[in-house]
């Protein structure tokens, strides 16, 4: 995956200006940097949720990417299992995915009744379930509110999908789960060091 001379402005502010980056095609890559430096914008551009004003992006595209948003974006009023049914192929069982995030017992619980950390894990399970068979998984601050033990277990299951994983993270624990850590600054976004 590669970004070449990408420029992207939002609300008149340049978030990326002629930004070039090569990303590993396998393993877990973490992007880290101060809040507001442009990590989320970079992830959205790679996913295909945003289109750059200049430059090119060589990535699988939105249809082949599972994207975990920084906000949970769960469907209000529905159960944990229904969150996954909404994105899984018809008839597919959501339970193994909820088991992978330690929430099998909460499958029939409405998400409004779950804690913040549990809701985050449901969102991760949804991205994971959707990601199976695709070409890229992008996780925007996946482990906010998730304890270290669960984060490790989830990452192990994510790795078993054998897909390149790109994530943004703040916490040292999350960064420790990655194979490669890219340190960024901005805006406009710039690479500090690998």
């Amino acid at each position: 995956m590669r970004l070449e001379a990408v420029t992207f402005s939002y609300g008149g502010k340049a978030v990326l200006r002629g930004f070039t980056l090569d990303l590993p095609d396998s393993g877990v890559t973490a992007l880290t940097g101060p809040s507001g430096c442009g990590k989320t914008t970079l992830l959205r551009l790679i996913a295909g949720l945003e289109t750059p004003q200049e430059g090119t992006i060589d990535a699988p595209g939105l249809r082949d990417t599972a994207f975990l948003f920084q906000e949970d974006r769960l469907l209000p009023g529905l159960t944990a299992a229904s969150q996954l049914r909404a994105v899984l192929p018809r008839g597919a069982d959501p339970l193994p995915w909820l088991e992978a995030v330690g929430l099998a017992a909460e499958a029939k619980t409405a998400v409004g009744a779950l804690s913040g950390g549990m809701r985050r894990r449901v969102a991760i399970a949804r991205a994971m379930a959707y990601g199976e068979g695709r070409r890229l998984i992008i996780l925007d601050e996946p482990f906010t509110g998730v304890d270290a033990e669960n984060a490790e277990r989830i990452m192990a299951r994510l790795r078993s999908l054998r897909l390149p994983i790109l994530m943004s993270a703040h916490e040292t624990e999350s960064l420790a789960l990655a194979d490669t850590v890219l340190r960024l600054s901005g805006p406009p976004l710039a690479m500090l060091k690998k």
Partner: protein
Amino acid sequence: MRSKRLKKFIRLLAPALFWLGLWVFAARLVGQPLLLPGPKLVLSTLWGLMGTAAFWRHAAATLWRVVSGALWGILAGVVLGAATHTSRALDVLLSPAIRVIRAAPVVSFILLILLWAGSDKVPVIISAMMVMPVVWENLRAGLASPGRELLEMARSYDMGPLRRARFIYLPAALPYLKSGILSSLGLAWKSGVAAEVLCTPRRAMGTQIFYAKLYLETPALFSWTLTVVVLSLIIEGLIRFALRKKTGGGENEA
């Protein structure tokens, strides 16, 4: 627990006793049953009416008209709400007309429709016309409620129109629809009975209200009105119960 129940009972009973007391007091003050009959006279008149087969036939006919009118109105409101939400062209075409129906005086519609339809059908059409805009408006608000972020999530997870309808729009619209249906039921009764008063179908509580007014049978007028109110409350209670089961108070399993 017991004192909680007692408190609830008092909370329900106290206002009823207050208004009943006020009614008794006002009736005694006026002193003319022709102008304001007391509750005792109204209840004894109602009891007398209930002993006749005609009472039940009139009540059943009105109930049927109002309920079928409300159901047609709900159906039309749902279809039009979905249509105007999904099609910009239909929105531009239909929304002003629906707003006109909502704003126009109901009496004008009653008299106009009486020229085109039989007196039996007018209350049904009028009830439907009063219910439809309320359901339409509420459904539109419900369908517009999922935010940009949720729709972007649906796009990124490649959710097709059917999945969006089932997992996003339906759960979002149901509470609005429920509220629209409940608030429009009172309108269905008011407008349906008003249409009966003006159109005087052979069997109708509205017709009996009209005759009661014509022959200055004020206790009978009160009795029929009381019957309308009680029937309206029963139907609203039944629908509220059915909708609560259906939507599970917003946190439903899907």
